[in-house]
């Protein structure tokens, strides 16, 4: 079916483009097939030695808390301590990635983990990050059946499991990482939810999580 609006809009655009001698299909094709990074700031190209340090510094500057653990085995006790410290219960909504199932949850009786989609009353959500970006201390959460997107948004505390091997310097490197498998929802998260809509006063926990806790696993 031909949409008259579509044809009309494109017609006006083409007329204006032609009148200015613009419109270069070759340049467009090139730009659409060979995506290349434009300018990547120095801060986004840290040496491997300072990659982790840069990520942690930037994530903390954005209001996230970061804990470095040597292995997955340390997750339950760290998480339980964190939730108790913030007066939260031990119910944790988790994604179903095999890596998350490999965590020895039974080691900590305070915790009860449950997979499935997030509900509006979940206090804690935990998902596996696809990448951590040192440039701004950002974590990339890619939605999938194993990683439901709303687990990252609805709970009060958002816990992110980030294998140290998934640290990259800049956003452009995550484009390569994703390749042709663009997730339905790729959310780049930098710190916890916030607003400054009332008298420009910054407050954490607007509609999304009030806290962002990143567990950086060195051995993974």
């Amino acid at each position, binding site marked *: 079916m031909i949409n008259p609006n579509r044809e009309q809009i494109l017609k006006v655009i083409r007329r204006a*483009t032609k009148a*200015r001698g613009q419109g270069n299909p070759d340049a467009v094709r090139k*730009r659409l097939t060979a995506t290349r990074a434009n300018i990547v700031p120095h801060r986004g190209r840290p040496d491997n030695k300072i990659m982790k340090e840069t990520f942690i510094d930037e994530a903390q500057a*954005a209001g996230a808390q970061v804990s470095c653990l040597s292995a997955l085995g340390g997750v339950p006790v760290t998480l339980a301590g964190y939730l108790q410290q913030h007066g939260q219960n031990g119910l944790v909504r988790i994604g179903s990635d095999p890596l998350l199932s490999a965590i020895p949850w039974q080691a900590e009786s305070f915790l009860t983990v449950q997979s499935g989609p997030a509900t509006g009353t979940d206090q804690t959500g935990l998902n596996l990050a696809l990448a951590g970006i040192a440039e701004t201390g950002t974590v990339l959460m890619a939605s999938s059946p194993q990683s439901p997107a709303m687990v990252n*948004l609805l709970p009060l505390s958002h816990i992110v499991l980030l294998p140290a091997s998934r640290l990259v310097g800049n956003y452009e490197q995550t484009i390569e990482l994703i390749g042709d498998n663009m997730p*339905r929802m790729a959310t780049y998260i*930098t710190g916890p939810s916030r607003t400054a*809509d009332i008298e420009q006063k910054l407050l954490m926990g607007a*509609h999304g999580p009030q806290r962002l806790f990143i567990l950086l696993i060195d051995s993974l």
Partner: protein
Amino acid sequence: MQSKTHQFNANVSKALSDKPLQEILGNLSQGFPKKRAQAKARLPEFDQLRQKAAEIRAHVLDNLDLYLERFETRVIENGGTVHWCGDASDARTVISDICHRVGARSVIKSKSMISEEIGINDYLEEQGIEAIETDLGEYIIQLRKEPPSHIIAPAIHLSMAQVAETFRENHPDLDKQRTLETPRALLDEARTRLRDKFLGAAVGLSGANMLVAESGSVVIVSNEGNADMTCGLPRVHIVLCSIEKVVPNLADAWSLLRVLARSATGQDQTVYTTFITGPKRPEDLDGPDEFHVVLLDNGRSKMLGGEFHDMLRCIRCGACINHCPIYSTIGGHAYGWVYPGPMGAVLSPGLLDTGTADDLPNASTLCGHCESVCPVHIPLPDLLRRWRTRQFSDKRTSLVQRFGLAVWTWLAIRPRLYHPLSSMALKLLGIIKPRLRPFADLPAPHGDSFMSQWAKQQSRPNSGDRS
């Protein structure tokens, strides 16, 4: 939204005599402009990135049809639907048709200036569909039945006390004795209130910061997380976006994102930067079943290639607004429509009926601060001047102004007459000014004119040697 740009002078008088508003406006420079300067200082490549961002936007406008076609193809391949709309009325119809078809009783919204442009909230309400703004600032002004006063901080004109009063009036079911004296208490009340609305709505309506042609993704940024919930919780997600927002590829999107948040709020990055690519996929546990992109022209294609072409590069960061001396004196409502400040003064006359927004481009000192902070180098003062020139050549300016300018022009090209006359006028103003009521606020002219001072300095021995 109904435009009140034609009442600009009355709007300004009202704003200037509004004491609470003036107090808030007085604090603006301590907020966004300061934070932007700090973010810029932290990124040595910032100006290089701005140059690149401007190039990307210019390249898109040179090839807009090609990128839109590619974007459309990709959205369809991803399982979404694209609706092309010529004007506001087309877009309202498309959106309400979708809502009716899925039996939506309520629509949750994330902040979208273009949705203000088409007045979708009122339109849906008329048809019995509740439209709920979820950005905190937008929620507050929706309750107050006010338009936004800033494109990124819509309730920036309000004090905490005013917000508390609004919540007491609009949440009558809650305890009347509750304390609402901190921003935290107000935020928590709004969060709780809106949580149920999020979970109950069948349709989520969002704007878009960018459309990526390469992947057919829609990019939405938000600090509150409300945009992601608007896109991810309801059964149907509708994206409303104007046609010029497309960018070639993901790397280009990131180049723009590096300057967007820094220019807007002074954050290195917005908290949630989300790329949405199609509807829910098989096996997904959440996400919308339907994904619609409403591409709206509403006057943009006609600006292409014209005098105001460069305005289409705008990425809506609001930096020009935050740094404008006029905006920080009169606030956003005085501008009378969706877009305030310098970007609004250029854009509104191009999108609204001819002649209805003529005052806006004239309300500028042309100080150039806006252009100096624009992340995509839009020559805003130059564009404002072009509107003035056009008004003059279309004979839409007042007779007094035309006559005055004609007299001045006549004199200005006759320097032998102009210099003595202007010197006389200066002296005269110095004498009568304090007695003339409307001019009493202006600084009194003192000393000689520049030309006569210059002549004096040149005639001095050793002139020019100031060491």
